């Protein structure tokens, strides 16, 4: 029982093999894609492996502390280099192999031409509280 974060990168990962921007898809293809995500999450809930998932807006703002009494300095997204994270899902599975298997399935969501987009997903294990046994 270990939790993993499946991160959907729009940039920062290698280019998927079916890399067509979503606004060039047909409406039906978009609906099918969204439906696939819904079905995937619903299926994981049934298997008892779903923890949480959210889509993220593309707009990101960088904020940092900039001294007392002064407003934080903000900066817009750096379109050329910024790694855009489109969304995430947290799963709770029995093994690393299972996490990889599920990420692979999620990556098969249909895109342009009804073909899988082969999207890259980053799989990150959660750092948990320490187990009871430490010696």
């Amino acid at each position, binding site marked *: *029982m270990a*939790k993993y974060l499946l991160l959907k990168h729009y940039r920062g990962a290698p280019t998927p093999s079916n890399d067509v921007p979503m606004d060039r898809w047909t409406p039906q293809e978009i609906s099918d894609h969204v439906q696939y995500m819904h079905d995937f999450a619903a299926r994981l*809930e*049934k*298997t*008892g*492996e*779903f*923890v*949480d998932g959210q889509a993220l807006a593309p707009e990101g703002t960088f904020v940092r502390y900039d001294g007392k009494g002064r407003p934080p300095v903000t900066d817009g997204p750096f379109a050329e280099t910024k790694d855009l994270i489109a969304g995430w899902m947290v799963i*709770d*599975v*029995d093994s690393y192999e299972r996490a990889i298997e599920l990420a692979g399935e999620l990556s098969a969501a249909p895109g342009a031409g009804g073909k899988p987009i082969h999207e890259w997903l980053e799989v990150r*294990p959660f*750092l*948990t*509280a*320490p*187990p*009871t*046994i*430490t*010696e």
Partner: protein
Amino acid sequence: MDDALLRTLTPSVLTVLVRRGADFAAAEDAVQDALTEAVRVWPDDPPRDPKGWLVTVAWRKFLDATRADVARRRREDRLGQEPQPGPADAADDTLQLYFLCAHPSLTPSSAVALTLRAVGGLTTRQIAQACLVPEATMAQRISRAKRTVSGVRFDQPGDVATVLRVLYLVFNEGYSGDIDLAAEAIRLTRQLTAVIDHPEAAGLLALMLLHHARRASRLTPEGALVPLAEQDRGRWDTAAIAEGVTILQAALARDRLGEFQAQAAIAALHADAPTAEETDWVQIVEWYDELVRLTDSPVARLNRAVALGEADGPRAGLAALAALDDSLPRHTAVAAYLHERDGDLATAARLYAAAAPKASNLAERDHLTRQAARLNTAGSKGEPRGGRRV
């Protein structure tokens, strides 16, 4: 309202229903309904015989559900075939429930969830909180598990080793929310040892007690890891240690050694030492030899290298470590520790830093980072501080 009593009664009530012919999944639902009703009714009207009350109510719930089900499928004619009430059997039937909940057809997480629910009597919400997943997810996990074992005959003998493995998983699952799963695992294992005479069951109970006894001293209030050598031994639960040692000795006397007994023996040697310096590392190495023989586990070999480093010096530990696959979890951390003991502080600092990102939990990662930082800053800040152990 005695929550603990309800939880204790759950498995035997469930067993009675299944013995009377109820399907496991349906019986489990009925028992949960009865528990809910008990929580509502008992505070005003406590029963004289709580178990009898629960059996009666659960059986009624089961019959109601069966009737509703049958009606829904328009098969009223089969009502006459309701299972007949049978005798309420002795407590050791509970053992069958343990076997069922740890059935090999279940995945480990399902087995853990089902055990907590059916044997432990926890609610779905409590189990979900303890495992940090949504209640809906846990509800599905449990109902799938119930469906998986639904066709399994209740009187088939099960595999004790599987049951023990599941209980050990529960013990290690964590402790957040209202329910402390380590304490729950101890309660269930204690209950198991009351109905089964098995040295490894006793070994597991001893192991859990010995680890649990030292839990409070393992972390600072802020959650930072405290190495064994620096733990405040005054905070160890001596009653739990004494009980663990007694149970272990009785198990060892049976001369049927298994991995849990061997691990418990190692834990007992740690718990027995009045100070870290007085730890009997020579005997610990011998127990690790047994553990390696029994399990052939790489983790046991790694821990043996640490113990050997204490018993025969860091060079001996490093030599043992060199024979092991360096991709093993904690291999780098152990190497860092042994190099530090050997006086090679530069190598130790480098290895601590390399080990930190490989740690699987936050407290361990922070600890290793702190160790690297301590060695890296020791030269500029004067004398090195304590905290040598991995």
